[in-house]
């Protein structure tokens, strides 16, 4: 009981600014989910109510996590990782197929995306492995082993297929290795290699002639790297915005128009014509494309506010890493911040058309129950690190 009380007292040391940013993002999300679903006739019309319930549940989870000592994760990190793998395998067999990809597992009517759990499991496992408890043990956990451990869930996510989500694993692991003191050069090389691969794929899609590829070569190449037709289509649309504006380029183009026409202050809440009239596809407006609804209706001012709130989140998260009492806390915070940052950055960049369309939601803002809970759980871990910082 006294343990509980002392934990409760610890909460007073929590980073309130970060909590404020979190709640700010959630509130913005709820408002614009309402806007994005206003014109829907079906049961999705009350998505925003569901989102409020999920947010409340998530915040509860957040507080409990913040009170719990993050060092206890050491005991469960492997178990959590194994569970993540099991779920990722299960989704390939029992997953619900939506638009040709199996990304969701249904539990009692609630959809769970195992890829989110997989990312968190890799972060937790990485934080434990990179900060060995034994005092003498100061040799760094081998880099390649961590990549291998992250590679398994990553490949499983690719198999769903969900290339966008799978690629998030890379910055996660890289950032954690980087701050835990891994030599910079191989990491830089790795990043450079990754960039090269991306450029190669992009040019294979866009300019096969330049690479001296015949169409047959091109086909073989895509088969070898397992790039599916829809992925190729999205890349083509990204590289040639004018191509097929009515078909596969639709979402991207409509999202850009929505954001661009928002102007400085937007068209006003519930007045976004792109959104209300259904040019932004209604199925993705409250989820992956929520940022374009916000940008359309509140303009640059509103979009910048969201950006700033993420900035606050990143600063608070990494500040927690800096003041953490041990290495595990540091690596854990960096991993989680990187995950949330990557999601937010990729999602917003995709919305304004500077990255290809991928199915990555905007953390805390997009509609999505389990993703909300998982995000808040992760942020609770950051607070757990923060409240246990040394001093006072």
């Amino acid at each position, binding site marked *: 009981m006294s343990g509980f009380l002392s934990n409760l007292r610890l909460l007073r040391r929590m980073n309130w600014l970060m909590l404020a940013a979190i709640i700010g993002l959630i509130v913005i999300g709820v408002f614009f989910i309402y806007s994005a679903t206003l*014109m829907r*006739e079906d049961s999705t019309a009350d998505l925003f109510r569901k989102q409020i319930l999920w947010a409340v549940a998530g915040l509860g989870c957040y507080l409990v996590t913040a009170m719990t000592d993050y060092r206890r994760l050491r005991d469960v990190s492997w178990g959590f990782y194994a569970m993540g793998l099991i779920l990722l395998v299960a989704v390939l067999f029992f997953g619900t197929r939506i638009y040709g990809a199996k990304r969701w597992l249904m539990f009692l009517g609630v959809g769970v995306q195992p890829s989110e759990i997989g990312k968190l499991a890799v972060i937790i496992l990485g934080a434990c492995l990179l900060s060995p408890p034994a*005092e003498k043990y*100061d040799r760094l956990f081998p880099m390649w082993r961590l990549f291998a451990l992250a590679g398994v869930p990553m490949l499983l996510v690719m198999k769903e297929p969900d290339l966008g989500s799978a690629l998030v694993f890379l910055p996660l692991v890289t*950032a954690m290795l*980087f*701050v*835990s*003191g891994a030599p910079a050069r191989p990491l830089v090389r790795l990043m450079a290699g990754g960039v090269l691969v991306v450029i190669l794929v992009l040019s294979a899609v866009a300019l096969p002639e330049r690479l001296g590829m015949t169409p047959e070569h091109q086909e073989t190449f895509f088969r070898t790297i397992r790039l599916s037709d829809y992925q190729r289509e999205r890349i083509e649309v990204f590289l040639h915005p004018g191509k097929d504006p*009515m*078909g596969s380029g639709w979402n991207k183009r409509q999202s*850009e*128009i929505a*954001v*661009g*026409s*928002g*102007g*400085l202050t937007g068209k006003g809440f519930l007045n976004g*014509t*792109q959104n*209300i*009239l*259904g*040019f932004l596809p209604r199925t993705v407006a409250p989820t992956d494309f929520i940022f374009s609804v916000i*940008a359309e209706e509140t*303009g*640059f001012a509103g*979009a*910048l506010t969201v*950006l700033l709130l*993420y*900035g606050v989140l*990143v*600063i608070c998260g*990494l500040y927690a*890493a*800096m003041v953490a009492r*041990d*290495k595990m806390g*540091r690596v854990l915070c*960096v991993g989680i*911040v*990187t995950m949330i*940052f990557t999601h937010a*950055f990729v999602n*917003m*960049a995709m919305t*304004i058309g*500077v990255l290809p369309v991928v199915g990555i939601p905007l953390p805390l803002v997009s509609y999505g129950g389990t993703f909300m809970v998982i995000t808040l759980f992760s942020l609770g871990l950051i607070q757990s690190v923060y409240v246990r910082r040394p001093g006072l």
Partner: protein
Amino acid sequence: MPAGNNTVNFELKRIRLVLSIMLGLLLLLGGMLFSLQVSRGSEFEESLHRQSMRRVRLPAPRGRILDRNMVALAENQPCYCLAFYLEEIRKPGKWAKSVAEVQRRIGELTILVGRKPVITEDDIWLHIRRRLPLPLVAWRSLDPAALARLAEARCDMTGIDIYVEPTRAYPKNDLAAHVLGYVGKADLSDDEAAGYQYTLPEMEGKMGLERKFDAVMAGEAGGRLVRIDASGFKHAEQVEQEPRAGASIVLALDSRIQALAETAIRDVPGAVVVLDPGNGDVLAVASSPSFNPNQFVPIVPKALWEELNADPQRPMLNKAVAEVYAPGSIFKPVTALAALNSGAVSAGMTVNCPGYYMIGSKPMKCWNPNGHGPVDLRRAIEQSCNVYFATIGVKCGNDAISDLASLFGLGAKTGIELDREAPGLVPTPEWKKKDWHDNWRIGDTCNFSIGQGALSVTPLQMAVLAATLANGGTVYRPRLVTGLRDWQGNTLTNYPVVKVRELPLAPSVMQAVRQGMHDVVMAPTGTGGRARIPGVEMAGKTGTAEYGQKEDRKKHGWMIVFAPFDKPRYAVAMVVDDAVSGGLTVGPRVRELMLGIFGGVPAAETGAGG
């Protein structure tokens, strides 16, 4: 501290580096947002302006179905709808006010229209949410009286207009219903609907030629651009791409003969096919009972559908091509031709008919219990003597008969452009072994020779048989659709006559059988005498085939005829369920049909035959 201070400082440095990278990226994103939203705002203003255009998919006018004399059997007729143009009657403020206004106006108009409106408050809300720039249809298919009352009315007509929607109509109602089929509301695939914000109801063939030639008749949908204002109401519109009308299909069918054929069997379940023996053109395909496709458009009423499907006489089934029957005696000409052609039998050979034929120790009865006495081929056909045909069938063997039957096209689909065509069956020893696991016996040959047993045919196949006998041995593929015409009536395609084969029969052999068939109708004692009409020489064959349980004693009556005998222009096959016999039941109906065809009495004025 487990790690040295240096290590920690090193790590902190790196965390700061990560932080600056992330903040840098966020700054970059902010910059791009600024450029997109503020600097380049005007670019998107223009896009947005273009965005205020909505594309409405315009269905193409559907091609018509014409008979050989270009009489329309299926066409498009205007359907007058009363529609509200919401952009003109909207009320400022909440949507509910506009909805209430629409409801008030509907209430006002109900008396004028004289019918309850088909839409509810929910429908209005749905329309506002989904199809705001399109007119809201409150009443469909207004009758002329209501249109007149609306034109005279002095009430406020702003925002109200008569809106014309094309609907499919079958001007001759149930004429050739089984051939034409009907249309229903189309389910647009995602591909078809892509790029359009709104679609209008479109038609799609669901049965018969409407379905078979759907792609040809549907044409290409066009698009209309509707410019809308900020709140989604229509502001202006323009046609962006005219729909391309579908092609019309021209049938070989002659609607006059079709009507005669349908009249001939209107009170009994059965089927009639009339072919042109010279080229296989299908002049009439009738199946009774029938249905009226006009009742099926735009949606088949559920009660009617259930009633039609529960009817034991199966009105939806095209019995002329989709039902198989035992042919009975009308098959005997095939037996005769096979026997003569094999050389086993000559036309002059006589067989004594004592009224029965012994198969082993079992007698097979002739229909005349007293026996026909000695009969030759011509007399045997005229009298339809079972004993004679069993005898010559056994003489030439079942293989010769089944080979010839197959050459006539029996046991295979003719390939006519109609739904669910049945192939029928020509029994062979191999077939019996495979399906019945039994050996072929002499009794099977006897049954086969007189058109009984497992042999089954469609009325269309029997019409082909009649046409082939009429033209002296050329099998044509029945041609129902002769060509395609564009909207102005110019020829797009002509489908050629398809000659399937010439039968390898000596002219003398054919001549002998045709003489027998001539006597069937023309001789005073012929079984088909009731089909005789003044002034036209005909040839034919009657048939009666038992079906169902033996104790029910149910019989199909058949008759095939061709006329005129010398230069045949018409070949007919008619089958009637529940007949006394082919000669008694079908003969008079064939007479009525032929009278009409040769211009005796118009079909509408003749009484029912029989």
